[in-house]
């Protein structure tokens, strides 16, 4: 186990290095740069700015300078803000996005598997249709419509719900809900499908025929096995939720990390692009590792150690 973790850690470092390298090259091959704008800025001032931020140096040199900084945990200065460093922005934005994302994840995890399981147990009966129509609704409405509609029809009419903004718990309710629909639907449908599969397995039939109560069969055997595919998508679902959504954060005016993913790119704010990308990669890799570990622990058939093979 220790050896496995150590290996994964080494792999993670290599992965992140690859992400850094590819993103770095990609971002510098996209046209534009942080200091170009629609103004009369003379060429000298422009070049002065490039010099100040080291953009006049050869790309390879910039790359190694950047790697050196990253090793020290320094994401550098934003090229658009003279107030906050990239580290500041991530430290400030991530907790906000993660707060909303986590609430959304909890909602999705509370209702998603339950909806899916209920649907599977009542295949082709009304609870099935009801759950699935609910789930389909969740994946049928794009988040930009959902967010806008929430503001127009809910926030405007419920006096204690603010219309966007950030500060108190009540500010986080609608955005969390808007974010939760998609993963909830994804989980519910995946759960239904794998649950149906499991319910037809021999061991379920065996358990049933042994006279074990339905509840025990469902909870002890069916759900536990059916949840596996759900766990396998949890890594990507959770990492997307936790780092925030551009659309939801923009519509609800939330000062989170999600905004930076798009803003940094449209502004060509190089250090922020790199910072958010690396950060996202770390969150994703950590969660994928957790998912693999979870797999190993839930499903005794999967052995990740050498001896198991």
């Amino acid at each position, binding site marked *: 186990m220790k050896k496995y973790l150590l290996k994964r850690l080494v*792999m993670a470092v290599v992965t992140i290095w690859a992400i850094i390298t590819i993103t770095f090259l990609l*971002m510098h091959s996209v046209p534009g740069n942080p200091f170009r704008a629609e103004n009369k800025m003379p060429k000298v001032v422009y070049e002065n700015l490039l010099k100040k931020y080291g953009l006049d140096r050869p790309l390879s040199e910039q790359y190694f300078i950047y790697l050196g900084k990253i090793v020290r945990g320094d994401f550098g200065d934003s090229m658009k803000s003279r107030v906050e460093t990239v580290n500041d922005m991530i430290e400030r934005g991530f907790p906000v996005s993660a707060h909303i994302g986590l609430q959304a994840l909890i909602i999705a995890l509370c209702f998603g598997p339950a909806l899916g399981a209920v649907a599977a147990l009542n295949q082709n009966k009304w609870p099935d249709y009801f759950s699935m129509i609910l789930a389909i609704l969740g994946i*049928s409405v794009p988040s930009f419509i959902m967010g806008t509609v929430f503001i127009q029809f809910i926030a405007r009419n419920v006096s204690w719900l603010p219309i966007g903004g950030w500060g108190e718990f009540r500010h986080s309710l609608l955005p969390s809900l808007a974010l939760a629909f998609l993963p909830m639907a994804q989980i519910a449908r995946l759960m239904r499908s794998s649950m149906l599969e499991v319910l037809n397995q021999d061991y379920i039939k065996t358990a049933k025929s042994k006279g074990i109560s339905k509840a025990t069969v469902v909870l002890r055997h069916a759900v536990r096995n059916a949840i596996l595919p759900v766990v396998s998508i949890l890594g990507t679902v959770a990492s997307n939720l936790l780092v925030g959504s551009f659309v939801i954060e923009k519509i609800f005016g939330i000062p989170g990390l999600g905004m930076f993913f*798009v803003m940094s790119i449209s502004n060509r704010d190089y250090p922020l692009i790199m910072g958010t990308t690396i950060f996202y990669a770390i969150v994703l890799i950590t969660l*994928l590792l957790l998912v693999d570990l979870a797999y190993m622990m839930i499903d005794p058939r999967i052995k990740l150690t050498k001896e198991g093979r």
Partner: protein
Amino acid sequence: MKAEYNFSPDLFTVAAKEDRNKEKIHRPSIRYWPDVWRRLKMNHLAMTGLGLIILFSILAFVGTEINGFKYFEQNYELINVHPDSVHWFGTDELGRDLFTRVWYGTRYSLFIGVMAAFIDFAIGVLYGGIAGVTSRRIDSVMMRIAEVIYSIPYLLVVILISVVFSSAGQGSSLFVMIFAMTLTSWVPMAILVRGQVLQLKESEYALASESLGADKSWILRKHIIPNTLGPILVNVTLSIPRAIFAEATLSFLGLGIQAPRSSLGALANDGLAGLPVGNAYQILIPAIFISLTMFAFNVLGDGLRDALDPRLRK
């Protein structure tokens, strides 16, 4: 020593012709795909979905010609007209007929959704399947590569690809977009497939097949892939809305389909402006058609899933 049995011939009668088949299995032997179709037909919800998809696919081409307007035709005297007998779905902010534009948009959305889902499916299954069955070392490397691809900012990729290919002209922009969109979106599918394969690889029937001397590709083709089809199909039907929404978000960021062409997502995005000023139909109509399309694909996906799984055969 020889036993002598003497049966008198009158003990025997000629079997009636109709009895000859008694020993035969009466249920006709059914091949796999016709059976899938038969079972799918019994699922009303799935058939509704299929019907809707066929209807929308037809209307996506025919619908633009029905009421005599062109999708780009503007009329500044008739802007923001609510649905009436001339403009069945009303007009937009430039006085264009929304009925025509909805079907035009459906054409693009369906195409984008299906193409992207197909590419996700093809790459995801291939990649995830290989990762799942090969050696642990290769699996590990493949999964790390998937992580790298998934972590690279997708917008950067889209911008870069659209810039690189922009010289290729307008016509190709749709394919450029689909290409850019699927460059990273197949990863969740690959991860799902790999997880399923890892699980199934350890299953009893795979083990049995292996002990009977089957090679890996046989097990993969005959046992593992058919058995992972359920969750994969569900994921494919989820890929279609994902791709349609991804395109809508790209339109929102200015990287989607080029105006005045449109997609359902882009129409809904345009319609957002009408919401606060009492022109809610401008967003509701595209939103309803997105939802119906999604509904159709999803129930069809569910139906197919049930129909494809031999264990659910009743």
